[in-house]
């Protein structure tokens, strides 16, 4: 009844700031980033990336309450840089990393099915005559580990009959 709307989890309210930054009163060169409408997905990767930074002395996050949709990330650096700078570096580095993962994944798709992984395949997809699927149907046998999982598929939930 008084449950918050589900979209509150990811929709930034009008006028709210995505990130609120406050100075830590007790630690030098330390900021607390209050990141609205984010969760462990973002906070954990930032925390980890920051810890790998040579100028970062402290980095940790918390999600204070499951019904309050923000995370707090505390970052302390040496005096040679600032928490905001290392945050920007961490963000850049992570964006590059996900780009690299996607490129590596696309290369693998290309290896599996050279004609299908040129990046334009989704746009070029012809509408399928039937509702679902179509497109890539890669043979997996040549890669050693055959797909024993997929071979047992075909009994998905839409076969479930309603039992009156």
């Amino acid at each position, binding site marked *: 009844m008084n449950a918050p709307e589900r979209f509150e989890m990811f929709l930034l309210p009008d006028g709210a700031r*995505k990130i609120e930054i406050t100075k830590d009163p007790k630690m030098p060169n330390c900021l607390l980033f209050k990141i609205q409408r984010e969760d462990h997905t973002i906070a954990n990767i930032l925390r*980890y990336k920051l810890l790998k930074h040579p100028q970062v002395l402290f980095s940790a996050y918390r999600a204070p309450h499951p019904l309050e949709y923000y995370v707090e990330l505390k970052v302390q650096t040496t005096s040679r840089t600032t928490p905001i700078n290392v945050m920007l570096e961490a963000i850049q580095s992570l964006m590059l990393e996900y780009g*690299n993962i996607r*490129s590596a*994944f696309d290369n693998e798709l290309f290896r*599996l099915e050279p004609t299908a992984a040129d990046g334009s395949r989704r746009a070029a*997809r012809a509408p399928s005559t039937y509702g679902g699927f179509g497109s890539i149907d890669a043979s997996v046998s040549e890669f050693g580990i055959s797909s024993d999982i997929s071979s047992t598929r075909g009994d998905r939930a839409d076969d479930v009959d309603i039992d009156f």
Partner: protein
Amino acid sequence: MNGSAHVGDQNAPRVRIRSLDKTNVDFVLSNTSLSVANSLRRVMIAEVPTMAIDLVEFYENTTVLADEYIAHRLGLIPLVSHTVDKFKYTRDCTCAEYCKECSVEFTLHIKCTESGTRTVYSSELISSNKDVVPVLETEDDRGAILVKMRKGQELNVHCIAKKGVAKEHSKWSPCAAVAFEYDPHNNLRHLDYWYEKSIKDEWPLSKNALEEQERDPSAPFDYKAEPTTFYFNVETIGCLDPQEVVTKATRVLQEKLGGLQLALDEDQAPDAAANVDDGEPWV
């Protein structure tokens, strides 16, 4: 944002796809961190947008199932969502309620006139958009059963499918399951197995254990070791291809990071407040 120049670097993440079919992609992600691999898993499950029925208007329902029950079943029907990127979220759209920019209409009008049982399938939904239709596995697949009727019963509904993410409701999840494993031999001791007599006898190894060596039990424990190799199996419900889910998840993560970067840049230059994030995709 494209980091392709760095692929091939010693430190760049590596991917090896072990199998790929219509609903599953099994791959090994290596040279990255647990937090990155886990964020990918979380986003594939909950933040890759798809289309799903979100509003249902009932004109007639004389079946044995209540309106709410049928509306819920309609919401859970997987819809082919390869064109989801062409749609706006209704909340970002300029229309008052819904329009073709942000939604797809479905109609279903079935009346049972025969004496036997009339089974209504998801394939009987008539879509206003040829690219967004109920997922069917084969050409003769009739889809999921919505309701069964007896003679004289009737169902007449008008449905609106919208773009959404599973964070709001799991009906928008493209994934049936995402299998995720690392360190199959438990070399890092992240797991503390419960056992009666022997861990080895009571906890069988997964097939991923073939890919890694077991740590020499006599060697001193490496407390600084971190996991670097992650085994995924992404199983979809058919609304997106499994490989599409993986690539879209990397984009969603980049968009999220881009939003943070923008927010930090604004904070650095308070005068640039005019440049407000309107929630549009960033990349």
